[in-house]
């Protein structure tokens, strides 16, 4: 499965950086504009899946192979849990927005939501990594079955 026709390859090569940028934008500005960690992460996963479909597995594995994807998945979930535990340690509740109560950022600024942007980034990485892993396993599973 070495990927599709050259036309598709070049188009995806050109488009994928913009998809990735859009995914990161949606994930990052979750607390300001519509979007958030989940849709952003899914767009990031979609960009990698697109590359994988167009260029075949080997090329994409150079950037984001199976092991690093599931590692990002676990690490991002662990960092989300640690943000919660930090809130627990700093008093307040288990998932307390301790940065916001500590020093709130500029009202409509990017860093205004206390630990909300941080959690958004963690969810974005987690969803991106995990969906890419499950799609890679589905493709891997099918490829082995064929040959």
């Amino acid at each position, binding site marked *: 499965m070495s990927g599709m026709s050259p036309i598709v390859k070049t188009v995806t090569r050109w488009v994928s950086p913009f998809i990735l940028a859009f995914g990161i934008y949606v994930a990052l500005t979750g*607390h300001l504009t519509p979007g*958030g*960690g989940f849709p952003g992460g899914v767009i990031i996963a979609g960009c990698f899946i697109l590359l994988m479909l167009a260029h075949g597995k080997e090329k994409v594995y150079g950037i984001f192979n199976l092991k690093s994807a599931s590692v990002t998945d676990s690490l991002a979930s662990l960092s989300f849990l640690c943000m919660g535990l930090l809130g627990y340690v700093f008093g307040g509740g288990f*998932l307390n*927005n301790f940065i916001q109560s500590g020093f709130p950022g500029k009202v409509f600024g990017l860093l205004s939501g206390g630990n*909300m942007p941080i959690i958004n980034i963690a969810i974005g990485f987690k969803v991106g990594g995990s969906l890419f892993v499950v799609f890679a*396993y*589905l*493709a891997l599973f099918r490829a082995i079955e064929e040959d």
Partner: protein
Amino acid sequence: MVLIQIFLVFTIIAALIAVEAPSALSSIISLGAVGFGLSISFLWLGAPDIAITQVVVEIITLVILIRATIGKGVTEIRGNESKPLLIGSLILFGLGSAFFANYLSAFPDFGKSAVDVFTETPSQFYLEFGLEKAGGPNVVNDILLDFRAYDTLGEATVLFAAILGAITLLNKKVFFGKGGEK
């Protein structure tokens, strides 16, 4: 208001096609039509967050579904369903919607949300103190990440557990445990 009903009727027709279509590809594509029709009606219903999430999740679902079925060369899915079950479910559905339509007056009618009908609801607090207490103008993400962040933690765990389960099932490592594939 009428536009929403048009979108919903469109999704119902697409859902019927998805269920009744003989070939795999056409039923998956009409399933996509259900999802995208819904996300447009979400936009109209004033929920942009949900529209983005719905569109993107729908794409991933379609890609996974097509990947799973078309790869198998399964284009023709033909199963002759039993007639009594069909009639039984139609009757059941008739009763259900009769009950639903008859008692619908008890439900707050369509245009009013919980903030208008009930006094001092949580969503009134979220709208009023969302920006002030949580710091983000997007109140929906305020709820998701601050007021009810514990829900989102469970949510991330659901996705993690589902993906971990899918990996365990698709894992090609053969093993010699009891009852496993030798």
